[in-house]
């Protein structure tokens, strides 16, 4: 098996793609949660609103953390790419 010698940019893109896929899944869960909560609220079940808001907040925090991860990976890959260009 050949050793993988990927450029920092390519590695960064893979990481960003992974984070993007994860955020998309979390967003779908959050959409489902919002519609289910609205449905329950309209049916008179007000007690589900608090747990749903808490779970939605947790999902938002995870999404925000993934976004920060993407930004960091992006900045690091750009820096590496810049150094590569500078040193030939």
């Amino acid at each position, binding site marked *: 098996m050949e050793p993988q010698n990927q450029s920092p940019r390519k590695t960064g893109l893979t990481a960003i793609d992974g984070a993007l896929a994860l955020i998309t899944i979390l*967003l779908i869960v*959050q959409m489902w949660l919002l519609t289910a909560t609205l*449905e329950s609220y*309209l049916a008179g079940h*007000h007690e589900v*609103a608090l747990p749903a808001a808490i779970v939605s*907040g947790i999902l*938002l925090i995870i999404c*925000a953390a993934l976004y920060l991860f*993407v930004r960091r990976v992006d900045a690091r890959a750009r820096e590496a790419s810049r150094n590569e260009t500078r040193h030939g």
Partner: protein
Amino acid sequence: MKLFRPASKEPLWKDEFSINRADEQYVSRRQFTKFLVLTSLGMFAGNVWILARSWFGKTPVYSEKNICRTTDVPVGGVWLFRYPTEKDACILIRPDEETYVAYSQKCTHLSCAVFYAREKNRLECPCHEGYFSITDGRVLQGPPPRPLPRVLLEKRGDQIVAVGMSTLKDS
């Protein structure tokens, strides 16, 4: 000093407005991630809004309204009226001699008008075949997600009066 531009394989506009395609793709992914996170924030705001409505929402106050006289509705017949506002269509049913029940006429699925099917003794929505019980308004069959809101009635002499609305909380 060179007066002329050296011959290049790329057209002039590409030299002067050089865009690194890989860089552009890279930025757009980051921006898309940002957009998704903002959407997530919107979803969270929606959940918080529902929570605020359930905590601080006002309980509606219903006024009383004369619907009809008991003699106006024959056994097995219906009477259409509007309650609590002129925009809310309702249906009053008299399934037997002494019983009067009334529900919102708006189907909880897609707001089609429900009608009383006398032979099957149930309320039916013609749009997607949603059926409701006339006993308590619960869904018997079909796509409606919630029971029909019930109009609370009082019989005062020969007058039937609407005094409020209630919704069956199905589990």
